[in-house]
């Protein structure tokens, strides 16, 4: 492997591995991401002497300066500083890849790649970071070692001062002798101890959580759950496949359905103005009383064996908990703050929405216990629960027609049933070619098109209930989850975002869903096995890496202490291990190692054998192998054959050295020539005899000679 080519290949791989998580995080703009890709591709082909010319380097410097100016202007114009800095680092990396000439360029590429890795820690918590980081760790030792060797070469040969130095450096860079496949594999294997240290430090380093600075980049807001929701907002996220939360049922039932329909309540909206749902200004957030790490919604303890779920929620804005109906008790894990573990702060609004404290923006893990508790937010005194927008008389009339007469419960049931019967579900809210009459989306839905999404149904149901005097509010959340058998959890994706209604009937809030059953949302194909594997890895990544915190450390320490004392259960320590997940990873790793080995072997054979490999007879191959074994043995004894020596010259040099070599080397050399080039073959048992002769070579202590020992 030529030194320069090897260094180039590994440097490009490392740069790509470092930049990919940053690009996938979405923190860098599309033009910058595309530009980096172009520079990465172009840089591969741009080589000295072109990149060493003064004009080229001046042009690169000018581009760097221009990029800096652009980013500064953007920052002045209001672009986030962190984003602008990350983008500039990516641009610099791309430009540096296009200007590789000396050691310093490679060193700067390594530094800029490292900056990408650092930058990505504040840009993404996704599993793509894990992949990028792993590749970076594997490649980094090789790249740094090669950069160091190049530095030594340039420094020692003073290539800028003398012609001889330049020639010598060029020869070394083109040499295949400096680094080999073994070197790359060896330095690559250094990543194993590096990773071990990484894991040890990661597990053992106490999480103080001083919190002087927060995360630079705020968590992205999710449409449908922010302060305002327009009809159609949920369509935007329903078209995506982002996993929002994952949960595991707490019961030990081994049979899990592939898809679970579960209503996870998130945001609550009570004001409808100008076709937009809003929340009354949130001045009524009240801290929830904590008993340790438990928060009760109905002031009742959860009975033993209560069903429930362990939920892991991705970081999102606003930081609302998603709760299934009937939740009576919430248990969260404590968070570290200024070196102390404390209960996480939960607050509840008057509408029953619960938000959590998320200083590190990594999401939250919590467990919910179902106690058939009433929906939270019991107050119905809020006048906005009965407010309908102006000019909705036709809708109110329709509501009265559908609801008829009777108690609130009966009227509400009839109204919901009427909506389900009369209207049909559509995958999108406003098809382009749909006939449209009316000023508002609701008018078009109710009186013209007759089809709509869950937001149309929920909004219509809420406003119609209000028009007949029943307090009501609109809820957004999620309605279904797909089981991941590899990870053993249910994944809730954005495509299952849903809207429904809660009405205050007979002194309690009741869930009413006017959306008729439809296959439109549910007929999507379940995730592929690969997607499930990736999701399972992502889940483990989030749970054990992103979500690893002080409380987990304390729990682990307790478990280990208990095991040490002999009273603990080892299963608690290994509960994180999922062999279903680890087994495929191991298989992939083993296959990768075998593949690399086969590839290297193939390349090695091709290089050593050249075209002659095809015409060499079996005996010739054996003769070559025997002679090479002879050479290796002699080299180990300090009598290495020089590269410019023929076998005969080598034999003569051994004799000239006064080495007592006996007849065996002459025999081996002669037979090598005869079989390898003379077309003759080996006699029966001759190969074993020659090999035994080779094994018999050894130093004769006290003399410079060497004797051919007896065959062993």
């Amino acid at each position, binding site marked *: 492997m030529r030194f320069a080519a090897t260094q180039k290949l590994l440097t490009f791989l490392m740069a790509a591995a470092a930049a990919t998580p940053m690009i996938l995080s979405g923190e860098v703009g599309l033009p910058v991401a595309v530009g980096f890709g172009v520079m990465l591709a172009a840089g591969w082909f741009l080589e000295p002497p072109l990149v060493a010319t003064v004009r080229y380097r001046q042009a690169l410097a000018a581009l760097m300066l221009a990029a800096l100016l652009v980013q500064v202007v953007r920052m002045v114009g209001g672009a986030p500083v962190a984003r602008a800095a990350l983008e500039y680092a990516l641009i610099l990396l791309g430009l540096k890849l296009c200007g590789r000439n000396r050691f310093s360029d490679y060193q700067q590429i390594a530094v800029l790649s490292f900056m990408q890795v650092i930058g990505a820690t504040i840009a993404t*918590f996704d599993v793509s970071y894990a992949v990028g980081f792993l590749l*970076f760790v594997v490649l980094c030792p090789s790249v740094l070692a090669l950069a160091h*060797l190049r530095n030594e070469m340039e420094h020692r040969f003073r290539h800028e001062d003398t012609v001889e130095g330049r020639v010598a450096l060029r020869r070394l860079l083109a040499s295949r002798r400096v680094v080999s496949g073994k070197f790359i594999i060896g330095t690559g294997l250094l990543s194993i101890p590096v990773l071990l*240290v*990484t894991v040890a430090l990661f597990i053992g380093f106490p999480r*103080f959580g001083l919190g002087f600075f927060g995360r630079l980049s705020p968590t992205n807001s999710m449409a449908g759950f922010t302060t305002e929701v327009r009809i159609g907002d949920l369509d935007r996220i329903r078209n995506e496949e982002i996993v929002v939360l994952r949960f595991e049922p707490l019961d030990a039932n081994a049979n899990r359905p592939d898809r679970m329909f579960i209503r996870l309540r998130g945001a609550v909206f009570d004001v409808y103005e100008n076709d937009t749902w809003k929340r009354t200004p949130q001045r009524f957030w009240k801290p929830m009383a904590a008993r340790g790490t438990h928060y009760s919604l109905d002031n009742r303890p959860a009975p033993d064996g209560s069903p429930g779920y362990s939920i892991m929620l991705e970081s999102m804005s606003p930081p609302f908990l998603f709760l299934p109906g009937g939740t009576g008790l919430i248990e969260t894990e404590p968070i570290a703050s200024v070196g102390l573990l404390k209960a996480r702060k939960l607050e509840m609004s008057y509408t029953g929405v619960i938000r959590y404290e998320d200083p590190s923006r990594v999401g939250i893990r919590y467990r919910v216990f179902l106690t058939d508790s009433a929906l939270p937010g019991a107050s119905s005194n809020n006048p906005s629960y009965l407010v309908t927008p102006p000019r909705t008389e036709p809708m109110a009339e329709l509501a009265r027609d559908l609801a008829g007469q009777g108690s609130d419960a009966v009227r509400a049931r009839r109204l919901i049933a009427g909506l389900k019967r009369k209207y049909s579900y559509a995958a999108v809210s406003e098809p382009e070619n749909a006939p449209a009459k009316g000023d508002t989306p609701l008018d078009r839905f109710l009186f013209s098109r007759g089809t709509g999404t869950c937001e149309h149904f929920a909004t219509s149901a809420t406003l119609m209930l209000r028009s007949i005097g029943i307090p009501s509010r609109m809820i957004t959340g999620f309605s279904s989850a797909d089981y991941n058998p590899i990870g053993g959890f249910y994944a809730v994706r954005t495509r299952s975002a849903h809207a429904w209604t809660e009405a205050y009937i007979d002194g309690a809030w009741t869930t009413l869903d006017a959306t008729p059953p439809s296959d439109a949302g549910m007929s999507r194909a379940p995730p592929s096995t690969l997607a499930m594997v990736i999701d399972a890895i992502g889940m483990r990544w989030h749970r054990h*890496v992103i979500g*690893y915190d002080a409380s987990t450390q304390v729990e682990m320490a307790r478990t280990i202490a208990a095991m040490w004392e002999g009273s603990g259960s080892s299963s608690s320590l290994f509960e994180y291990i999922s062999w279903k997940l680890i087994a495929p990873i191991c298989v992939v790793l083993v296959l990768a190692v075998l593949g690399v080995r086969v590839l290297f072997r193939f390349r090695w054979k091709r290089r050593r054998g050249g075209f002659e490999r095809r015409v060499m007879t079996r005996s010739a191959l054996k003769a070559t192998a025997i002679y090479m074994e002879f050479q290796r043995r002699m080299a180990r004894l300090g009598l290495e054959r020089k590269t410019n020596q023929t076998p005969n010259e080598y034999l003569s040099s051994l004799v000239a050295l006064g080495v007592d070599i006996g007849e065996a080397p002459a025999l081996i050399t002669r037979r090598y020539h005869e079989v390898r080039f003379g077309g003759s073959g080996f006699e029966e048992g001759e190969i074993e005899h020659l090999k035994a002769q080779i094994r018999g070579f050894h130093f004769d202590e006290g003399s410079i000679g060497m004797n051919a020992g007896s065959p062993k």
Partner: protein
Amino acid sequence: MPRGLTFTRDGKVFVLISLGVGFAAVNTGNNLLFLVLGMMLGMIIVSGILSEITLRHVTVTRRVPRRVEANTIFPAQLALRNDKRWAASFSVELRDEIDGRPFRRRCFFLKIGPGSQRSIAYRGELPLRGLSHFDGTIVSTRFPFGLFEKTRFIDLKDKVIVLPASVPVAATPRTAMTNEGALQVGVCGSGQDFLELRDMVPGDDSRRVDWKSTARLGRPVVRETERDADGFVEIVLDASPVDGTDEALENVEHDISVAATLIRQMTARGLNVRLVTSGSAGLSTRGVVGSVRLLEHLALLDPALIARGPAPVGTSPKAIVIGRRREVAA
């Protein structure tokens, strides 16, 4: 074997960045930063282990001349053998330690394969006369990442006599030569002065037959002559300093160098040289090869000891006297 570890500039930056990342990780609780911190610390540890492996099982051999001249370049050779079976040693630097100080010349080996040996010659130069001790060789490496320089001292002792340097000196006139011409030494030789007559024996040169005596005695007689002895130049060197100041010592060193230069010049011209210093009765030599003995004597002169002794006394009034105390016997 003693080991040493020093930070390179890149290493200092790396450690500072590690501390920064560590602070950021502790402060923010961002687990990804803990991963990065772990990676950086892992790199530091791996760097230490690998550099240790690089310096292990290596053997150094040195070849230097026994005598060298001060301030004159001399060749030296350092060879490094990697005795490891599998691992190559990369980026190894050798540096001799002479008289307790690392020598400025360095020998660099980019790669020494397992079981192989490489050697590099370097140009040495020693400034001061005397006996120089090669204490050992400092083997160092910055491999693999250039963050730290690990050194290992290999005890490899050698001695080199540094002869006094040559300094510009005017050519010595022939008049300085004592007893120029011939000396009676009473030994047969190829001189001009008659020594004796003796009977001719087989092997004698027939041109040496004294025909008159042969005729007179009736048997072949040859004429023996006395061997001529060349004149010699006597150099009287008083290498005692006036006082202990640097200037006085420099003057003494200069005087020694002058003496050495004269010895070299004269022996090169085929003259015999006799050197008289304090505490020595006088050393005579003939020829360039023989001058080495005088030069070694000069190289090892200790001015402090000489100052305590009497001034050197020459035997010839034409002796070249060098030094402070110019006393020459009549």
